[in-house]
């Protein structure tokens, strides 16, 4: 990129006072400092997730087994939905950097076009996250535990979780030992009819979906980390969409054109890329590993 930062300057000029030795404006530098501190917050969350997972003596759920649903479709699509969300966020990052590039050419129309697409992409991502949260909270039917320490997944045809035993197609599937989400293998794993109803009646607990104290996917901490990490990130995305929208309105009104530079787009862009950057890490350390 052409500009002040790439100019060759002697050290005397650079560090001689009267100018920033970084050849960077105050606003951009402060945005970078904020991003470093925000990155530390996210690092703290992800490292504590790693700590919890590494020290646990229980089984810990695996991303590809928890997140395998798609809207409007039945069946198992491991990680496909999260991958779509990642793609949406990366592409909205690309439109943002194109908007910044247009700003460096003082191309107001280009800035508006790409920034508008960025806002749309961000809104799509927040919406996708709302769906994922809803799906995570409602769960897939839940499981019961029995007095002899058994664990059975609850199934019925209508996905009824209020009175599943009286719903059509009610049956239980034994859980595989040592695994949170996988069913046991073989014929004996399926329990139907009166036997299933007797097991249901003898249940110690029925755990269905997810909340802050317990969830059907794994240890309580698993859902808590899911809510905190993706929630904190989602809030960043939401803030980013609002900021981008405000900047877009200012661009349309010609504020930055009159000012002579589009640095505000660049600063909002730094924040927006950071949100994408964080998601890259959340995607790896929460969903993949």
């Amino acid at each position, binding site marked *: *990129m*052409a*500009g*002040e*930062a790439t100019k060759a300057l002697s050290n005397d000029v650079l560090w001689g006072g009267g100018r*920033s030795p*970084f*050849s*960077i404006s*105050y606003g951009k530098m402060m945005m*970078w400092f904020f991003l*470093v501190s925000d990155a*530390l917050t996210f690092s*703290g969350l992800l*490292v*504590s997730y*790693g*700590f*919890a997972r*590494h*020290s*646990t*003596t229980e089984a810990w759920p695996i*991303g*590809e087994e928890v997140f395998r649903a798609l809207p409007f479709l039945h069946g198992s699509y*491991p*990680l*496909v939905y*999260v*991958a779509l969300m*990642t*793609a949406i966020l*990366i*592409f909205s*990052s*690309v439109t943002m*950097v*194109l908007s*910044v*590039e247009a700003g*460096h*050419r*003082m191309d107001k129309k280009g800035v508006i076009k790409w920034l508008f697409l960025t806002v749309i992409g961000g809104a799509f991502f927040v919406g996708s996250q709302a769906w994922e949260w809803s799906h995570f909270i409602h769960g897939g039917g839940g499981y019961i535990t029995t007095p002899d320490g058994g664990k059975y997944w609850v199934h019925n045809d209508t996905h009824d979780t209020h009175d599943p035993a009286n719903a059509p197609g009610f049956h239980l599937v034994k859980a595989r030992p040592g695994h949170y989400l996988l069913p046991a293998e073989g014929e004996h794993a399926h329990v139907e009819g009166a036997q299933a109803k007797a097991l249901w009646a003898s249940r110690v607990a029925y755990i269905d979906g997810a909340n802050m104290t317990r969830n059907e996917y794994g240890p309580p901490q698993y859902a808590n980390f899911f809510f905190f990490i993706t929630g904190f990130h989602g809030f960043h995305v939401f803030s980013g969409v609002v900021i981008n929208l405000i900047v877009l309105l200012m661009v349309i009104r010609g504020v930055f054109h009159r000012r*002579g*530079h589009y*640095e505000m787009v*660049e600063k909002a*862009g*730094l924040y927006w*890329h*950071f949100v*994408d*950057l964080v998601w*890259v890490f959340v*995607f*790896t*350390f929460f*969903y*993949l*590993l």
Partner: protein
Amino acid sequence: MERDDIIEYSLDAHHGEEEGRRIRRKIWMVTLLLAVVTTVEVALGAYWKEWMPGSWHLVKWTFVVLTIVKATYIVMTFMHLGDERRNIRAIILLPYALFLLYLVFIAIWESNYIHRVWTEFL
């Protein structure tokens, strides 16, 4: 009052059509790279058990390395940090990297001990 202590560095951050074409080309190349890496990660996450069973450690470290590759391209190209002066680059990246390496090290180290205490004494 007119301030004379501010140099408007941003007024200098302009480029022409020719330079713009080159930059856009770079942006699209990085986009392609990020898309390919993400696709590889998802495919590996979903199918590694069929493709290379039992090699979870290799898969895990592949994820970590690919993530750092992606992060580098986002920070250096999309956030233009590669185009800034070396001193601001160092001020942003070095303290963060040093602190984070320590944090990751201490968290993994300590969680190992806690895991052992919970398995052996509880």
